[in-house]
């Protein structure tokens, strides 16, 4: 068959943005294979989610009303059974933390190849060409495969689907075996609260791996003080325990939109950029002119931060 089955992502009552993007990715793929686009909405307020996702280009929406929140065992079983029922060529899931918690299991169960974190897809007959990054974004690659596959898509790479669709919305009676469910979600916790909310700041001085040593952070603190700015960072600084989690900008940290964002020694991994690309003005200080941060910077200083930052402190002291 030539159909595409795309799976929506939601959490705590809300569809995540990638759910609308996967409609676009799925439609494009289905156009290329000449098939229909099916959506699966699993757990939570499925009818409400289905209505919201009924946008241009969706042919059918299958709801699985089982439980409130994501559980990978439920998802894996429901998606596997939908595959058996619909026989699509491609199963598309978000490359989210939850997507990566069930897509590989579905692929293994169905004995299909899995390609993750794709940023572009092209199908021609039985052949799929998937574009994805390697080596932390230093290169892009194309990977080719024949036949059915499970594919995960990166968020914010496809535009959100718009318009109103006329998809048939049907409840899918998945046969969920509760005995195989071996994990239980006991709660959620917001992290990164505390003394400061970096998402409120007008000026962020943000520091990354380029700072090299914990003691060098002092210089960045001085700069933030001199500018009366708020201090934030990329992931490695928090992973190292040099700054608390509430200072982390990015996919797993905070999304920030200051007037000016000064990225100091931050290479600009996609997970970081996801958290700061909405800043009005972005300034990058980095020795590497090819660092991905330069792609979204409005202004750049290609120089050693250890030379530039002291000059800047001096100017504002």
């Amino acid at each position, binding site marked *: 068959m030539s159909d595409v089955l795309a799976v929506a992502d939601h959490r705590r009552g809300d569809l995540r943005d990638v759910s609308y993007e996967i409609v676009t990715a799925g439609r494009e793929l289905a156009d290329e294979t000449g098939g229909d686009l099916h959506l699966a909405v699993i757990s939570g307020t499925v009818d409400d989610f289905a209505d919201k996702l009924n946008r241009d280009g969706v042919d059918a929406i299958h709801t699985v009303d089982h439980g409130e929140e994501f559980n990978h065992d439920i998802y894996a079983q429901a998606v596997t059974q939908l595959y058996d029922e619909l026989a699509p060529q491609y199963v598309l899931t978000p490359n989210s933390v939850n997507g990566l918690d069930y897509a590989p299991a579905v692929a*293994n169960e169905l004995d299909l190849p899995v390609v993750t974190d794709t940023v572009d897809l092209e199908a021609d007959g039985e052949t799929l060409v998937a574009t994805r990054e390697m080596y932390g974004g230093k290169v892009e690659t194309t990977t080719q495969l024949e036949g059915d596959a499970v594919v995960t898509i990166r968020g914010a790479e496809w535009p959100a689907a718009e318009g109103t669709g006329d998809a048939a919305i049907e409840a899918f009676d998945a046969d969920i075996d509760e005995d195989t469910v*071996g994990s239980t979600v006991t709660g959620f916790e917001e992290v990164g609260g505390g003394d400061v909310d970096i998402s409120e700041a007008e000026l962020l001085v943000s520091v990354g791996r380029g700072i090299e040593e914990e003691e060098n952070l002092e210089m960045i603190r001085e700069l933030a003080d001199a500018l009366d700015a708020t201090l934030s960072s990329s992931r490695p600084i928090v992973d190292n325990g040099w700054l608390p989690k509430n200072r982390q900008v990015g996919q797993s940290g905070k999304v920030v939109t200051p007037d*000016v964002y000064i990225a100091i020694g931050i290479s600009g991994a996609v997970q970081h950029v996801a958290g700061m690309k909405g800043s009005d003005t972005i300034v990058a200080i980095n020795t590497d002119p090819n660092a991905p941060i330069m792609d979204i910077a409005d202004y750049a200083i290609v120089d050693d931060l250890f030379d530039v930052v002291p*000059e800047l402190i001096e100017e504002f002291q």
Partner: protein
Amino acid sequence: MKILVTVKEVATVEDEFEIEGTEIAEQYLGADLNEWDDYAIEEAVQLQEDGIADEVVAVTIGPEDCEQTIRQALAKGADRAVRVWDDALEDVDLLDVNAKTEILSAVIEAEEPDLVLSGVQAGDDSFGATGVSVAEQLGFQWGAVVNHLEHDLEDGVASVRRELEGGVEELTDIELPAVLTIQTGINEPRYASLRGIRQAQRKELDVQTLDDIGVDESTIETELELTDMYEPESESDATVWEGSADETAGELGELLRDKGVAQ
């Protein structure tokens, strides 16, 4: 309790490099222990130090060249290591998730650990899928992107936190045996001590072929083919300030004043 940690030697790339075909030219490549696996090893070793684990076994798929990297796991405290390699794997361009799943599952079945820790992803090919795939294959439970594990695995349950997007953590109880994929930041990986490095040389590093672990060559045939590799086109339209640090800092200062965010 026995813990198995999957480790991988990953290729690292210099800032400036050239591509030859679908590979980065060899002179620009280095090798290192995968960053995520370093955290997985640390977590296992801490579980051992807390008296919860009796044995920590590191498992890798790779040629003899990677032994030095795998010995890092031993130097940090793993008790022994298993390295799977085979002539049949030499010619495989891209060892895909299914192939890694076959190999690792065979080793895990023989070792019978209670808990398997793997990194969320590898820093080179970044599939982020092998841990969960292995769990499914073995009939183990699993949790992806774990950034906290309670060191109290009583009643055969692992209480973990999964790091979701947007600063939200999911608290989940997972029945053992299980595979957890470990996120960076879960702990602070130690540096191997000199004593540890010396001891690592004497620790057991068992080399096994596909035949040894009972995996048929045909099952590791990859379905994915790498067809192109290129540097992403720079989309930068940034204004680059030129000059000495004094001058560029001056330009930035002026911008900040213009924008009214600093005086």
